[in-house]
């Protein structure tokens, strides 16, 4: 197979675009698509300071690299969850990338260690408060991401969510008719009350396969291994179903998710916007001052429960 843009050998076919690219043209394609996403969704400008949440996986490291290559002012946050084996291996990948690629561009890595802060890793914490590990983990990661962005005055928080993630989440939300979640499924959520920075997903136009291919071509050394807690996650079932549909009919995932975004945009002139809803329901947590819909935020409630469980 030849590249459709130049005479070189293709390294990846992209059936959804009915094309194929060599390594250089694939790199160019992804960077252009990310730039297009940033523009189309008005995510940020070259002056904004961006904080990327990195896990050591392909999506977040690729996002960090592309934003650096596009010349944005971007730093990263890694949350060390204290999962035996997996956490040290993922941290090693992140630190290596930071040292070899990011730091030479003047980009900084911040590491938050759950065990230092809470006295236990994520698994023990979740056990203490009798919650599923992934739900406790989600609360902690969201909280620390917000906190670091807020304390260090970042304008924008970016995550590596891709087209497969968003299409799978949309499928899940539609299957359960979780309309309140549908509202929040935009690749660009505005900054709301003080304390929450803007949240963006610049990879929402790219599939996981394209991102992984970019990482391989550009020698981004990421962790292929998955978090051991992820096994059997519902998301994987949805992703698998969507990929089977995609194989039969290339472009299904993008038609599904982008079609949803188009409809959402058309109806947003009538419905109250996310930031309007936020303004009326969010207030500062009485313990830590981060915005919350309750009196005490879910993170502070979780920590209080963990403390009483130890006693």
């Amino acid at each position, binding site marked *: *197979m030849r590249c459709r843009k130049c005479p070189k050998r*293709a*390294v*990846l*076919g992209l059936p959804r675009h009915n094309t*194929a690219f060599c*390594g250089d043209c694939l790199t160019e394609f992804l960077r252009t698509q990310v730039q297009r996403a940033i523009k189309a969704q008005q995510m940020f400008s070259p002056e904004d300071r961006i904080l990327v949440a990195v*896990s050591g*996986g*392909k*999506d977040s490291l690729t996002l960090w690299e592309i934003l650096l290559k596009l010349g944005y002012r971007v730093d990263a946050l890694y949350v060390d969850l204290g999962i035996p084996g997996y956490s040290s291996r993922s941290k090693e990948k992140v630190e290596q990338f930071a040292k070899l690629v990011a730091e030479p561009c003047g980009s900084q890595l911040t590491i938050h260690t759950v065990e230092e802060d809470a006295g236990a890793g994520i698994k023990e914490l979740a056990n203490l408060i009798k919650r599923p590990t992934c739900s406790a983990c989600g609360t902690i990661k969201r909280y620390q991401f917000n906190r670091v962005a807020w304390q260090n005055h970042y304008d924008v928080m970016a995550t590596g969510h891709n087209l*497969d*993630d968003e299409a799978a989440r949309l499928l899940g939300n539609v299957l359960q008719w979780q309309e309140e979640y549908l509202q929040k499924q935009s690749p660009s959520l505005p900054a709301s009350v003080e304390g929450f920075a803007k949240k963006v997903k610049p990879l929402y136009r790219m*599939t*996981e*396969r394209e*991102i*992984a*291919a970019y990482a*391989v*071509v550009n*020698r981004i050394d990421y962790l*292929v*291994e*998955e*978090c051991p807690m*992820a*096994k059997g*996650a519902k*998301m*994987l079932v949805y*992703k*698998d179903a969507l*990929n*089977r549909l*995609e*194989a039969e009919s290339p472009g299904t995932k993008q038609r599904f998710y982008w079609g949803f975004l188009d409809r959402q945009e058309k109806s947003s002139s009538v419905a109250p916007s996310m930031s309007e809803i936020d303004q009326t329901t969010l207030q500062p947590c009485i313990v830590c001052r981060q915005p919350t819909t309750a009196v005490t935020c879910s993170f502070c409630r979780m920590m209080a429960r963990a403390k009483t469980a130890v006693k």
Partner: protein
Amino acid sequence: MKVHLSHPTRDVVIQGPKRVADIFKELNLIPEAFLIIRGQDLMTEDETVADGDSIEIRPVISGG
């Protein structure tokens, strides 16, 4: 040829030479969920893997 797979990590041996597309079929895998890597290079589905080659079939789907 030697084929390296992940989740769980294992190696299988398949008779070559064989086209990448046929390897996917033989292992009952959806191409959309994997990359094929020989050495440090990606391979497209129409390319042929020689019997003496070692390849990695790397999953690209993550659970998060």
